[in-house]
């Protein structure tokens, strides 16, 4: 006897419609969840076919926030796309900035000063803290908590956003990284504020975990729900905490070693079941590792310039070439594919959106579970519609 019965239906794609259809099993109910549903994280829509409350078919529908980001990128200068990357995954503008800056730097063969690399690592890890904290809050909101975990998460997120604001001038649309460095240096006292935040974050996590991690209702709602196998995860291009929750050790910070990550000592937590609880816990553990990286980076950050002196702000025209560059964003692998023909605008500007590609497996995860679980599974995938729809 347990809270979570094994799913009665096979989760193979294609086996999505119930075979039995007789007088004992009534009609299927087709529900269009979204785009204005409280827990579809924006304007996401799921066409769900229900047998009772069990999901037998689920088709994600999106594009309600589509603005053709890539076309805009092709019609704007390299620099002009930078503020637009803030608006992809609007919770994680710093990592989006970094991914784009890194791609352009690879395209143009630019170097980045040491202090800027450290700042980038610090900002990326702060972003990871911010994103994972928010995710835990949203996930619990999807589980039906009355806002309490979300409010605690937002209370802490606010502190990180204040840091971003005093550094970049904006809380969410940071537009901070530049090709060859960062825009401005950290103001006086900023690093100390970041240290204070980092040191206090662990105790917040402890309290947060006391509220949630041992909670029987949360465990009943998430353990054994939406199991993702490692094989499917890799094949479906799932990245980030989802992939690691499925037990695959693939963290680009370790694999590609971009930035200065090889200089820091941190571990990559792995899940064993690939279920919603693992996805939640892997993120919590990742936050603890992020705190370690932050402590090291804030300890070691050197003084020096933050911008490559050779970097050009105006009239930036990389030589013809092509690059695909990726970093480990909080939601997964965020990549930029750029083709330059020597002009001021990229010929092709492509964003690899982790949120969108992680949604590939949504139906596989939800089949056979109830509609309440579908909402929680969607929450655990962690999407931001600004990135899914672009």
């Amino acid at each position: 006897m347990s809270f979570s019965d094994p799913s009665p239906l096979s989760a193979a794609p294609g086996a999505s419609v119930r075979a039995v259809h007789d007088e004992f099993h009534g009609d299927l109910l087709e529900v269009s969840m979204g785009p204005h549903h409280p827990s579809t994280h924006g304007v996401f829509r799921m066409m769900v076919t229900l047998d009772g409350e069990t999901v037998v078919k689920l088709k994600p529908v999106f594009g309600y926030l589509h603005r053709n980001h890539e076309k805009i990128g092709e019609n704007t200068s390299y620099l002009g796309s930078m503020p637009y990357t803030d608006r992809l995954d609007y919770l994680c503008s710093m990592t989006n900035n970094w991914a784009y800056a890194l791609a352009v730097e690879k395209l143009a063969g630019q170097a980045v000063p040491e202090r800027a690399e450290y700042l980038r690592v610090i900002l990326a890890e702060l972003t990871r803290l911010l994103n994972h904290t928010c995710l835990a809050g949203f996930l619990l909101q999807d589980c039906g908590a009355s806002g309490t975990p979300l409010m605690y998460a937002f209370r802490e997120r606010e502190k990180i956003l204040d840091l971003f604001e005093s550094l970049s001038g904006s809380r969410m649309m940071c537009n901070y990284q530049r090709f060859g460095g960062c825009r401005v240096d950290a103001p006086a006292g900023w690093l100390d504020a970041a240290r204070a935040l980092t040191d206090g974050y662990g105790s917040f996590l402890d309290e947060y975990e006391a509220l949630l991690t041992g909670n029987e209702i949360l465990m009943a709602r998430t353990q054994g729900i939406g199991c993702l196998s490692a094989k499917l995860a890799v094949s479906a291009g799932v990245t980030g905490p989802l992939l690691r929750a499925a037990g695959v050790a693939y963290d680009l910070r370790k694999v590609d070693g971009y930035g200065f990550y090889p200089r820091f000592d941190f571990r990559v937590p792995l899940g064993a079941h690939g279920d919603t609880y693992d996805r939640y816990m892997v993120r919590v553990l990742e936050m603890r590792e992020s705190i370690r990286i932050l402590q090291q980076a804030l300890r070691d950050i050197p003084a020096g310039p933050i911008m490559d002196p050779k970097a050009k702000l105006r009239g930036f025209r990389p030589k013809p070439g092509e690059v695909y560059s990726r970093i480990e964003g909080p939601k997964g692998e965020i990549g930029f594919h750029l083709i330059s023909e020597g002009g001021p605008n990229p010929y092709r500007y492509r964003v690899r959106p982790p949120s969108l590609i992680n949604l590939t497996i949504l139906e596989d995860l939800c089949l056979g579970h109830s509609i309440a679980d579908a909402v929680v599974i969607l929450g655990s995938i962690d999407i931001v519609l600004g990135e899914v729809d672009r």
Partner: protein
Amino acid sequence: MLGSGLLQGLAVTAKNFVGSFHDPKRFVTTQYPEEKTRLPEAYRNFPFLVSENAEDPMGTLRCVACQICEKECPPQCIYIEKSKDKKPDASGKQQIYPAVFDIDTAVCMSCQICVEVCPFDAIKMDQVFELAATDRFTGLMLDRHALAKPNSYFHQLHPTEAAEVDDRLATERKAAEEKARAAAAAKAAAAAKPPAVPPPPPAVVPLPPPVPPAA
């Protein structure tokens, strides 16, 4: 045991309930219209045009209508028309000035790229965020009169950056003046004419109160 996790959670919420009455670390709310948080110096919202003199903002705009910001602006919210004539700028040099300089703040996304690309330090970011208009087509379109703010205002908003900019501009101007003087002296020596009178330095204006740009 069943329920221990739930009790633990209840203890956490009880702690927060009590904590919100005495612990400012937990109770972080700012009662907005009455209290305001201090904006960090780096905070940016919408651009404004720097003028040297508060008395005559249109006459002392640093902007020379080079249109770089118009070209670089990602959402294309800036519209500039160059003047037909030239006016002396703050250092007395004859310059083209913007006959029209409009920023559509409904379109502007506060990215600061115009500020970064401006070679004349003529456009900077404002910190006024309480902008509301009943008509988005007119109320949010700011023309150069609404956009012009004196340099002293810039000093108020971003003291560090403004001091740097002033230093840089002063050295640039000095260099330019010396060059002009040398050229003039050379010319005078050549033509045996009296040298031109150097232009007066910009007047120091008292700090005016910040004015919201929205009309």
